[in-house]
């Protein structure tokens, strides 16, 4: 390999090959809104070879065979403004619109959000709620995994063979489905979520027939609440049940205190958001 330090491959296979080559110390960069913060805060002469993913054309937002394909490198602003996403995946559009600020949304990507793997990651929470699949490209070919499985996979395994997220595949929200995206943060702009709750659910004749309730910021990653599914499916939502669900869901959480909020606040606020979201079912 040459001593070139920066690559902007137009071909996904080439990108994976570069990222799989440990000898060049490759580092993938998409929008840069996470990685550049790290570079800026810890200024060092860099030995890594940067592999820029922005020329791979992974910014498409399209519908194919009844599924929505969300390119991993589509900037949040484009996802939020897309007529297709607003119509078919309004939960995702809302989540993207409420992240960061205008300038950051023009660069940040959902792929980056998912890979960055933060406790408060809104992209992860939204995709989990939507039950999205992740398509991961590598030198070994393409793999499709459920979002939850992808989050459970080790970083090493994710990056094996120069792993790059190609796109997310999501079943569109049908008009009959209920969805919600609620979050609280210190101010509206440039402020990471302090608590977040997302929901994708179905109702039939007054009863809940499907429930994916995702809790963000309350554990090492956003997660789908098994307890919520167990308690809601087959039942009629109501104030009493909703409150019960909120209480039981907190049992699945491990909130922490940090500069933005205490664990106590996160518990109280998450419970309130869960009840708010469930009350939208009927």
């Amino acid at each position, binding site marked *: 390999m040459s001593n070139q330090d920066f690559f*902007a491959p137009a071909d996904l296979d080439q990108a994976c090959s570069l990222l799989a080559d440990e000898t060049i110390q490759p580092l993938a*960069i998409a929008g840069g809104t996470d990685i550049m913060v790290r*570079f800026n805060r810890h200024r060092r002469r*860099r030995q890594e070879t940067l592999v*820029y993913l922005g020329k791979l054309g992974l910014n498409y937002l399209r519908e194919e065979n009844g599924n929505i394909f969300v390119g991993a490198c589509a900037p949040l602003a484009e996802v939020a403004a897309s007529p297709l996403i607003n119509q078919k995946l309004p939960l995702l559009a809302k989540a993207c619109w409420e992240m960061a600020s*205008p300038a*950051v949304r023009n660069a940040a990507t959902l792929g980056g959000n998912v890979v960055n793997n933060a406790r408060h990651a809104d992209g992860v929470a939204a995709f989990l709620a939507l039950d999205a699949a992740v398509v991961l490209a590598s030198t070994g070919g393409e793999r499709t995994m459920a979002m939850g499985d992808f989050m459970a996979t080790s970083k090493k395994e994710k990056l094996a063979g120069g792993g790059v997220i190609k796109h997310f595949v999501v079943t569109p929200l049908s008009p009959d489905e209920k969805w919600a995206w609620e979050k609280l943060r210190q101010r509206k702009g440039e402020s990471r979520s302090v608590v977040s709750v997302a929901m994708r659910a179905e109702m039939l004749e007054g009863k809940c027939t499907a429930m994916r309730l995702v809790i963000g910021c309350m554990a090492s990653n956003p997660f789908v609440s098994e307890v919520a599914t167990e308690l809601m499916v087959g039942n009629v939502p109501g104030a009493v049940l909703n409150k019960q669900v909120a209480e039981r869901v907190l049992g699945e959480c491990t909130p922490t205190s940090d500069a933005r909020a205490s664990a106590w606040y996160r518990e109280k606020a998450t419970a309130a958001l869960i009840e708010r979201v469930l009350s939208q079912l009927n």
Partner: protein
Amino acid sequence: MALLEIKVNGRQHRLEIEPAANLLTVLREQLFITSPKVGCETGDCGTCNVIIDGKLRRACLTNAMSVNGSEITTVEGVGEKGALHPLQTSFYENYASQCGFCTPGMIMASKALLDQNPNPSELEIKEALSGNLCRCTGYVNIIKAVKAASDTSGQEVGK
């Protein structure tokens, strides 16, 4: 090292840069274009706002090589004394600056807004400026200045 070719404020540049360098450092320290400021280096304050290929971006979070071949606009390219953009005139006339440090970032964010939406509501102005911090003015005159610039009838605000 890497070779960066960018057009800044209409002028073509060819520079050798560190591949990891952010655009803010390149603009300020290699091209001496100093209107984008170093306020936080984490993308939170907005003082480094620039427009890249028509989109508002944080120069501090933009890897310079990743925008190789792009067109970049800073306040110096928005207008100059004697040929001011309506936003610059409006900021000046409406006392929308005190220390002035946030002003270039505010003007770029406002320009990006008006380029897409020539007549924004107050809420739309606030949303467009939601990524910009000001510690001096309390924002009221800034919002007023953007509104005044957008109301300038007959002027080509979108340019």
